[in-house]
């Protein structure tokens, strides 16, 4: 078999970028997706995509600074070479997307316009109206359609990835997928398989993610032996619109343009918010953070809103957690000019005009930093070696992962507008790797069909047994809701060990209950019921590893916040005391870094229970430093830290000298 195909699972930004490049390299691609690729979750991204550009460069920006902002924002939890490579590719990627016809907003001279996003001082973010993700996805979708017409790409839309197929040596030889219309199973032998299946927000019930973001494909790879990295790092967005079906994102620009967050002082005050006098309102962000007011960073805003509703019981509504985000004091014309697009979203889905009535918002699960563990090969300059077999390869040889479903680029927290970049980057970058992987490794054709037949039979068996469970007592939709509620309660904004321990047991019990789920549709034609039930079953192993990872990580890092292990600011007010406390603070920080600056690696044990281990992080390019934003005594700590790092580089410099002279 000289001619091998590549199987790309998932047609979001990452999957389409990989497909396009593969086709261009002359490789035939099978592209499998649950939904028509043009309808993938990537369409939801509104804000924009980051890269250094001509303008920021002249203000002192560089690829290195983008790289630095990304690892700093991610609390140093990501291996640095892939991030450096991504930042280096940024400008090329935006240029490419521009050439593909993405209607980026323009300056009056006709150049691409940029805006500023959180976590940086530079205007790095290129954007296309309020639908950047949609525009980027369409540009890639169009190119892939072009290759489809040429015959290089074959799309399998409305197909579900069920399992990778491994040979005796443990190498991935392809996969088995299922047609969601006819329910037929099919083997996809491939020189390499790449998963680009996005996030897993549905584990939290409702999130800002799309309905196919169940994480099922990743879970299936994990259950087949792939490692999962940094699972406990889940980003929560502070302002989303709570809905019965979904939590829709309300852009941060609402606060940026002067929106005020408040709750009535009287719990669940039934009055019309407009008639509640100022004195009976608590503008809690402004009260607690007089300096930043409503513009505190994402994670702080999230925690405070969460706290006021749960701990203090001041939620606006009785049966639903939410606070007011109020824009009604801003003139209508200003609102329409600056926020028109996003206010329309609120109005469309809530049926209420936010220019007149305060919006109700609450934090929502938004992004999964964790994902399948993937490898990389470091180059001499600290970037990656293009085309290396190892890039983006999971712990299963021949099985790769890209996009939101890998764990590689965002560490403990993702910067806004960096995800679209990492998706396109990893997609483009993995293509030469996959092309090289094709045709490598000898195999016996006879064996192969046996392997696939075996897996198809296993899947058919699973499917049949699910359909046979008509007499079950559990309702899969109800169970999903329970799982979501539990996960949202214990594993989002604030984590506490005394909640995580029982929650883990509870999820184990739910996984057990799942085996008694009844499917109400026993037919074999477009049976969405059984597909969902399957995906639900595959959520438990991931939910478990999230909980266990969170339970074991006794520290605060990025999106993972455990009050019991928070490092408070300085208390002393006199210079000497402050200095002393700052030294102590830095000692603790260093000790914590030694202990916890490690990737969490989960492997799937028997019964779907995770085994957790830790792996050192490559921080060779930028040494870790504390994130001090908003901390009391930040300046004193920073001073101590600077002295220490100066000493450290001094040492390193001296240590390196003899070697340098010798070379």
């Amino acid at each position: 078999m000289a001619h091998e195909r590549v199987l790309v699972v998932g047609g979001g930004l990452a999957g389409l970028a990989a497909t396009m490049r593969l086709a261009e390299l002359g490789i035939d691609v099978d592209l499998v997706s649950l939904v028509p690729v043009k309808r993938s979750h990537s369409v939801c991204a509104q804000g924009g995509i980051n890269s250094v550009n001509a303008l920021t460069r002249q203000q002192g920006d560089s690829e290195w600074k983008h790289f630095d902002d990304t690892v700093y924002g991610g609390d140093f939890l990501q291996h640095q070479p892939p991030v450096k490579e991504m930042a280096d590719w940024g400008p090329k990627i935006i240029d490419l997307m521009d050439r593909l016809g993405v209607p980026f907003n323009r300056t009056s001279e006709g150049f691409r316009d940029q805006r500023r996003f959180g976590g940086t001082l530079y205007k790095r973010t290129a954007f296309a109206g309020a639908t950047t993700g949609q525009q980027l996805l369409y540009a890639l979708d169009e190119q892939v359609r072009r290759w489809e017409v040429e015959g290089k790409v074959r799309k399998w839309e409305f197909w579900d990835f069920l399992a990778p197929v491994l040979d005796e040596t443990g190498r991935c030889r392809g996969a088995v997928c299922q047609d969601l219309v006819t329910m037929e199973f099919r083997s996809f032998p491939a020189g390499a398989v790449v998963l680009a299946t996005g996030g897993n927000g549905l584990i939290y019930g409702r999130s800002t993610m799309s309905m196919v973001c169940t994480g099922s494909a990743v879970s299936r790879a994990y259950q087949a032996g792939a490692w999962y990295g940094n699972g406990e790092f889940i980003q929560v967005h502070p302002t989303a619109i709570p809905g019965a079906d979904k939590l829709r994102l309300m852009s941060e620009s609402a606060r940026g343009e002067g929106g005020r967050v408040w709750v009535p002082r009287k719990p669940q005050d039934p009055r019309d918010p407009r008639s509640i006098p100022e004195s009976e309102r608590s503008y809690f962000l402004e009260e607690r953070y007089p300096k930043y007011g409503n513009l505190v960073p994402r994670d702080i805003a999230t925690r405070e809103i969460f706290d006021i509703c749960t701990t203090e019981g001041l939620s606006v509504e009785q049966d639903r957690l939410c606070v007011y985000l109020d824009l009604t004091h801003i003139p209508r014309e200003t609102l329409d000019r600056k926020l028109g697009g996003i206010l329309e979203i609120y109005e469309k889905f809530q049926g209420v005009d936010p220019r007149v009535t305060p919006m109700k918002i609450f934090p929502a699960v938004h992004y999964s930093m964790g994902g399948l563990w993937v490898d990389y090969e470091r180059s001499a300059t600290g970037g990656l070696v293009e085309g290396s077999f190892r890039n983006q390869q999971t712990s299963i040889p021949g099985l790769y992962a890209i996009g939101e479903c890998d764990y590689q680029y965002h560490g403990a927290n993702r910067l806004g507008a960096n995800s679209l970049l990492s998706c396109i980057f990893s997609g483009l970058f993995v293509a030469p790797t996959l092309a090289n992987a094709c045709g490598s490794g000898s195999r016996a054709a006879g064996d192969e069909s046996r392997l696939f037949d075996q897996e198809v039979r296993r899947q058919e068996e699973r499917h049949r047994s699910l359909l046979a469970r008509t007499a079950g007592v559990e309702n899969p939709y109800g169970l999903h809701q329970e799982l979501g509620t539990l996960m949202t309660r214990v594993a989002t904004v604030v984590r506490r060990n005394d909640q995580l321990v029982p929650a883990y047991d509870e999820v184990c019990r739910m996984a057990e209950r799942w085996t008694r789920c009844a499917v109400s549709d026993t037919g074999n034609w477009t049976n969405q019921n059984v597909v969902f039930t399957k995906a639900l079953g595959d959520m438990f192993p991931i939910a478990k590893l999230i909980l266990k990872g969170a339970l074991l990580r006794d520290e605060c890092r990025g999106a993972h916040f455990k009050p019991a292990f928070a490092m408070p600011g300085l208390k002393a007010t006199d210079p000497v005391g402050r200095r002393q406390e700052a030294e102590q603070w830095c000692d603790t920080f260093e000790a914590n870094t030694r202990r916890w600056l490690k990737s969490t690696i989960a492997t799937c044990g028997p019964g779907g229970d995770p085994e957790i281990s830790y792996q050192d992080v490559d921080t060779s390019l930028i040494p870790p430093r504390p994130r001090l934003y908003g901390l009391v005594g930040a300046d004193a700590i920073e001073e101590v830290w600077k002295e220490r790092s100066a000493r450290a580089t001094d040492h390193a410099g001296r240590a390196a000298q003899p070697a340098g002279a010798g070379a």
Partner: protein
Amino acid sequence: MMIRATDDAHAMTDAAGAQRGELVRVRILRQDVPSGESYWERFEVPYERNMNVISILQKIAAQARSQDGRKVAPVAWDCNCLEEVCGSCTMLINGRTRMACSALVDRLLAEDGDEIELRPMSKFPVVRDLVVDRRRLFRGLEKVEAWVPVEGSYDLGPGPRISPDEQEDAYPLSTCMSCGCCLEACPQYTKVEVVRREGESEKDFEARRKAAYDAAFVGAHAVSQAMLFNAHPTGRMIADERMKALTRQGGIQMCGNAQNCVAVCPKGIPLTRSIARAGRAATVWAIKRLFDR
């Protein structure tokens, strides 16, 4: 103006009396398999504030019981983003084509009495219940070569400079999510259903299906995309190809100017402008070709 619409909706909702604890009645036109008979089934789900048609369908899936308490298979339907950007959830709601995710129950009840009616799109073959096969719509994009013909993905610098005016002109067209509302409402767009013949190979069937699609009207959606790319400095380089496609059988000439497309497009895309521009381009192109031959 917006406020008035909202307040009205609220006022009317109160009149319609849907409140917490009450039930919302839904009537769904179901069909088990593509060639099967369709039939009506009624459901009731508990009312909730800000409910949309998707949440109704979710509840129906969870309860899997019809109004009279019979156990029935859950209704099948398509959705993904729930934000009206992916184009999945098009259906006929109270007789009109729209996106289920942005169809608020309060408004529907205010509009149309006390029962909500859901039907699958009528211009595409039904797969099951509310799920239809919209491959013809994507075929339209292939037909008009809706892409920028770049040489490849190697780094060749930025794209062409584009004025803000051009960007503002192109951007709305570029938000088309291939939902098919414009096609559903178009009186000139009629259903094409190709059924596999006994013993026909997958490949032959595929070819026959595509030929059937190509012979029928491409529809406003593809015409508009063709215009989008004909306006792009690089996309324009194959403008002739697109004009050829638009003037072949099933091309722009099939439009009867009913302008329903523009009225129902959930993205408010100026489709009639695109159609008229395509008409103009076709006029010029056809005349040029007459003399250039």
